[in-house]
């Protein structure tokens, strides 16, 4: 195990940021810490990096107890959301920083910097200042700088959060490819479930200072541990006692399937290739959302006011609705 977090807790006054976190991250994997803002995922990452100290618990990195080590002794690479590049240094100097601190021979530093700039496609910008780079380029620079010291783990805090959608997507693919090339144990924090599902080998879902679930993207999507995980990873609607994805509901125009729920189509919204239906169901205050393909909807000849019978498709991911009835939540 590359990173071993045991019993880590952190409070800010009355606010519990992390509550008894236990997680082990295997060597060489790309792990995402996924969760809503303020859920504690960034705090956990900063505790692993040593930028913050935990109130309780221990952090082991590569088998060494790092709980009391200052950040400069942990050999971790950290990449910040807002790049944190050294503005007064050229791109090459930025990348060389960690090596110069370690007093490596000049020739070695030069070769390593050239290699890394090649890796992040910034070779032709080596002598520019960071202010002359775009956001995406700055973040690649920050990555190269962190990789220069050959860290045992690479930690990225919302690395693409400050970038626009297109650059974000490019960098996401690039990070995945980079990881396949470099194989350094990588942990990144994100609140974007698509980013996590697309890039990570393993996802740790964190909410309100607790781990909700740990698993591969497929496991999380197909077998969510609870309705929070299910809701966070994609759209969710409620059909009777079950929470499930809107595209996992079968629509029939006659009462054929046993146990299907009758309802009336209230709204039909077409977005590109899909049709989103809002269906009123008896005995349920909140309407059911159903997504089906344009062709399917046309074949069923659906329009406003049509009577439909809804049932979960076979093999659908469902989670029982727990706790407080939805009605109470809505009225609150």
């Amino acid at each position, binding site marked *: 195990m590359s990173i071993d977090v045991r019993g880590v807790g952190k409070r800010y006054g009355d606010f519990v940021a992390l509550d008894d976190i236990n997680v082990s991250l295997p060597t060489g994997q790309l792990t995402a810490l996924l969760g809503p803002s303020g859920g504690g995922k960034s705090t956990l990452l900063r505790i692993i*990096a*040593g*930028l913050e100290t935990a109130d309780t618990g221990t952090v082991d990195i590569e088998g060494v107890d790092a709980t009391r080590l*200052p*950040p*400069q002794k*942990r*050999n*971790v*690479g*950290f990449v*910040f959301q*807002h*790049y*944190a*590049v*050294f*503005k*007064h240094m050229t791109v090459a100097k930025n990348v060389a*920083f*960690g090596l110069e*601190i*370690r007093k490596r021979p000049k020739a070695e530093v030069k070769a390593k910097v050239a290699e890394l700039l090649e890796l992040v496609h910034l070779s032709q910008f080596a002598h520019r200042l960071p202010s002359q780079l775009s956001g995406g380029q700055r973040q690649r620079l*920050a990555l190269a*700088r*962190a990789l*220069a*010291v050959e860290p045992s783990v690479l930690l990225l805090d919302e690395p693409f959060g400050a970038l626009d959608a297109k650059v974000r997507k490019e960098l996401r693919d690039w990070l995945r490819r980079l990881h396949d090339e470099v194989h350094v144990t990588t942990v990144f924090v994100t609140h974007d479930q698509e980013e996590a599902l697309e890039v990570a080998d393993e996802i740790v879902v964190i909410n309100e200072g607790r781990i909700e679930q740990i698993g591969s993207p497929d496991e999380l999507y197909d077998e969510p541990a609870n309705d929070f995980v299910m809701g966070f990873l994609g759209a969710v609607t409620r059909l009777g006692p079950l929470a499930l994805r809107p595209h996992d509901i079968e629509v029939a125009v006659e009462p054929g399937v046993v146990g299907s729920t009758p309802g009336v189509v209230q709204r039909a919204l077409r977005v590109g290739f899909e049709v989103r239906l809002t269906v009123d169901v008896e005995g349920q205050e909140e309407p059911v959302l159903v997504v089906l393909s344009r062709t399917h909807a046309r074949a069923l000849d659906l329009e406003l006011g049509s009577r439909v019978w809804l049932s979960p498709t076979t093999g659908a991911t469902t989670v029982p609705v727990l706790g407080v009835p939805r009605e109470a939540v809505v009225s609150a």
Partner: protein
Amino acid sequence: MADTRQIRSRRGPVAYVLRTFVIVYLAVLVIWPLYEVGKQTFAPTKSGAEGGFSAFLDRLSDPSVTYAFSLTGTVAFWAVLINTLFGVGISLLIVRYQFPGRRVLSVLVDLPMSVSPVVVGLALVLAYSTGKGWFGEALESVGFYVIGTTPGLVMATAFVSLPLVIREIVPVLEEIGTDAEMAASSLGANGWQTFRRITLPSIKWAVVYGVVLSMARSLGEFGAVKIVSPGAELRGETATLLIQNRYNNYEEPTAYAAAFVLVLASVLALVVVSLIRKEDHP
């Protein structure tokens, strides 16, 4: 981002009225009085003697005048040096650390700006004078005298100009944030290396700016120095005290010449400051 500054057209009656008003105001308050100082500076020493630059140099080469300027230079140098070191330290403490009493400290730091320098001088006398001071007796027993000596002058000057350095550095430290510093430490830099290679270059211009301002302030300090210094010729008489003494003793030409040098120093400081501003915001 769009430029939101609104600049009105340069023409129109309002612009002319405002311009005239500003020029007249500056002329009456600043330019004309300073011109008179300059005129007196280069006036002939005696009636019938030659005026101009040689007369000016003649006045300045008087030993008591050179003493006064070298004393002012020494005091300003040490005061600025002390303020730069403490200013950077206090700024880092105020911005980067959370501790009880932090807000009180940041208010206290501004205090010398609002308190009259005369009061500062009195306070120092109360604390350090050998007769009744709190620390005076103890310091006297080890042979160190504060009041009436150069260290006392340095202390008074440093006290008065302390906020100038801090006020320049604090906003810059707040603006640059801690990300770059944390990045440096995660890359293996220790506290000193981070400060030397990351923090200091980022606040460099603020420090230089603060130094120039406090240098100008130190050269011109009068009130606090007046109380602390014995103020006699060749004994603790700084340039500003010299100007006052000479003026009161009807040696006005020398007073004007010394005053002119101080004006030159301030103008130089202003030029340096505006050059820095340009460098800072290219």
